[in-house]
């Protein structure tokens, strides 16, 4: 059985090697950057992160909007749904009406969740 997965091992290995060698190649072949750091360890104008030519204000790595987390949480809920639905779908013909009703209940519960999130503004962006 597992023999089918042997090509995958090869594939992952090969792709990884190719991508890594590209990375190494570009680092080696391109001109090596210089004066990326001021004497005090600060960035030179060249090595500064891009902010339209102005000096960046504040930190780039800060807490970002909670809405992004909301999406992540919603994703978990609905991706779990997908995880349940897909095996069910594959064997759906065998399950027949019984399978339909059970899944309907499951889906309704989840859809209610979606409706609640929708109504409470969890899917709004401003």
């Amino acid at each position, binding site marked *: 059985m597992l023999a089918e997965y042997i090509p995958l091992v090869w594939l992952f290995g090969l792709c990884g090697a190719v991508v890594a060698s590209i990375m190494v190649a570009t680092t080696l072949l391109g001109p090596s950057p210089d004066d990326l750091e001021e004497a005090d360890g600060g960035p030179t104008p060249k090595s500064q992160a891009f902010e339209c030519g*102005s*000096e960046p*204000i*504040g930190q780039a790595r800060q*807490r970002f909007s909670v809405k992004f987390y909301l999406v992540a949480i919603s994703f978990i809920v609905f991706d779990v749904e997908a995880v349940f639905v897909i095996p069910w779908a594959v064997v759906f013909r065998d399950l027949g009406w019984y399978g339909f009703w059970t899944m309907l209940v499951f889906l309704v519960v989840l859809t209610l969740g979606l409706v609640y999130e929708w109504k409470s503004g969890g899917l709004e962006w401003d």
Partner: protein
Amino acid sequence: MSKSDIKKLGRKFRKVVLDTSERLGMDTALIDKDAVREILEYLRDEEKMQYNMLRHLTCVDYLHRDPRFEVVYVLYSMSNKTQVVIKAAVPEDDPTIDSVHDLFGCANWAEREVWDMYGVDFKGHPDLRRILMYEEFDGHPLRKDYDKQASQPRVELRKTERDAIEEFKTFHKQQPEQGSRS
């Protein structure tokens, strides 16, 4: 139409309207600079005039003349389609005048430009910064005694960036409800 407006203005504010003229189709009133808010507000709100749009705000530097500056307000009436020009004389030794940014929204930037270019200080302006030149610029370039070819030393780092960090901090402090829940 606006001719009578300018006359009416002259009659109503006899003391502060120094001169009126109508040359080249420009209905102009020269006024005392202290009355600028009063007159502009009157022109804007008066039922029959409704000069509700400030078309242009600029300043002219008449070097060697007293008063040296003239701040010019070009007003337009949207309903009557007429225009008047109000000029306020500003002397060289006291280059200040009242701001009208709350009467006309566009005066905000226009006044900043006049400050930048001529150094006329608008009292009551909320944010009188330079607008076209950089903060560190020395002098007011459109004054007639500023040499056209004058050059200024290169500025190493612009202060505004630093200020923006300060501003960020104060913003953060003043409006904690806008910040994170902490």
